């Protein structure tokens, strides 16, 4: 549960500015961006996602490196990704 998964912010939801659509390895999911001030996270940003929340802003190079590392973890990463995919927060 302590893994952080990188995702790219593709859309800030206009009707719900505390939510954003992110792309995580080709899968789109809604996450909560309420741990940042309004406007701090914008489309095209990369974030580290933890339990459905953007926890930290990162750059694209870090996102790629973090993703490679997570893949090397095997099961732990697969489980986290499955859990993220099953999540439908709103």
């Amino acid at each position, binding site marked *: 549960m*302590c893994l952080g998964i990188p995702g790219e912010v593709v859309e800030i939801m206009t009707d719900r500015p505390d939510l954003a659509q992110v792309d995580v390895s080709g899968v789109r999911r809604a996450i909560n961006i*309420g741990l940042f001030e309004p406007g701090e996270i914008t489309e095209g940003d990369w974030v580290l996602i933890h339990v459905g929340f953007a926890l930290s802003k990162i750059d694209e190079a870090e996102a790629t490196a973090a993703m490679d590392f997570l893949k090397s973890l095997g099961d732990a990463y697969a489980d986290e990704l499955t859990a993220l995919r099953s999540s439908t927060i709103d």
Partner: protein
Amino acid sequence: MRFVDEFRDAEQARALAARIAARCEPGRTYKFMEVCGGHTHTIYQHGLEDYLPEQVELVHGPGCPVCVIPMGRVDDAIAIAKRPEVILTSFGDMMRVPGGDGSFLDAKAAGADIRMVYSPLDALKIARQHPDRQVVFMAIGFETTAPSTAVTVLRAKAEGLANFSVFCNHVTILPAIKAILDSPDQRLDGFLGPGHVSTVIGCEPYRFIAEQYAKPLVVAGFEPLDILHSIDMLLAQLADGRCEIENQYSRVVPWDGNPTALKVLGDVLELRPFFEWRGLGFISHSALRLSEAYADFDAERRFDVPGVRVADPQSCQCGEVLKGVLKPWECKVFGTACTPETPIGTCMVSPEGACAAYYNFGRFRRQRLLQVTPR
């Protein structure tokens, strides 16, 4: 260097290993604690101990939130879950954690409605979908996770969701580090600071470790090279006679943490006077509960919980493992009575637990090592 498994950056790792070896003073030993379970996982998975000279020993710390939940809290959660109106929601990692009378999985098999969620917001959604039921979220985690629980409670309040509450088991990392520094049976030379906790709290709060205990701490990332690099930074400090808080993981961790997350956390949660940690006993001001303004969402106030303290099984040595006094394989039941399938202690449950990490990766390495190392 003995037996090395290859990984992507093995070349760079070797270069760092050589630098680490060169920094070690002859005849001196170094003992560093990696506070975070994520680090423990990387260390075993990538066999990083094989890159280190014999003089450098890594000991595993208390930074796995699943591992530190005492049996009594699991029992309390199960007591809540057994009420017919309740749906208990929990991260998957909690499902196998043994309480005094079985785990969440056992309680579920016996008929309790316990569901796995990825996010506290998934629990909130279940509450919306089941207005006739009471939905309780079993909140665990350090400062990394606590702000997410806080935001979820804010939303529940904004939506007026009367059937949602939180069974709060959030813990804070600094008192645990302090307890270990104060413990007489542990002599440490420095710390690898937790990466994700620090994205929230920042680096400044660790200052007392350098100033009052004269130990260096380097906030470390989770990749193999991050950990080796951080060990190198600790050794450089010791060689220079410095004792500072440094941030190796600045590409993710801002020095001042996340002020918005800290504010939400402070608004919704407050420190408990004391809290029991598995194996470490009661530590004052080491855990969080819902503050007075959000007491309506506190499952401990909404439901009666037994609140009894349950002693760990006699065979269990998780406390020593969590303090870094014992290595996982030194526990008497490791790999025999206690395995990830049938855990006796918590450190065997979460993949971030030292025993599980060692069971899954280190054990084979050790066997191979014994085979390939000439006597």
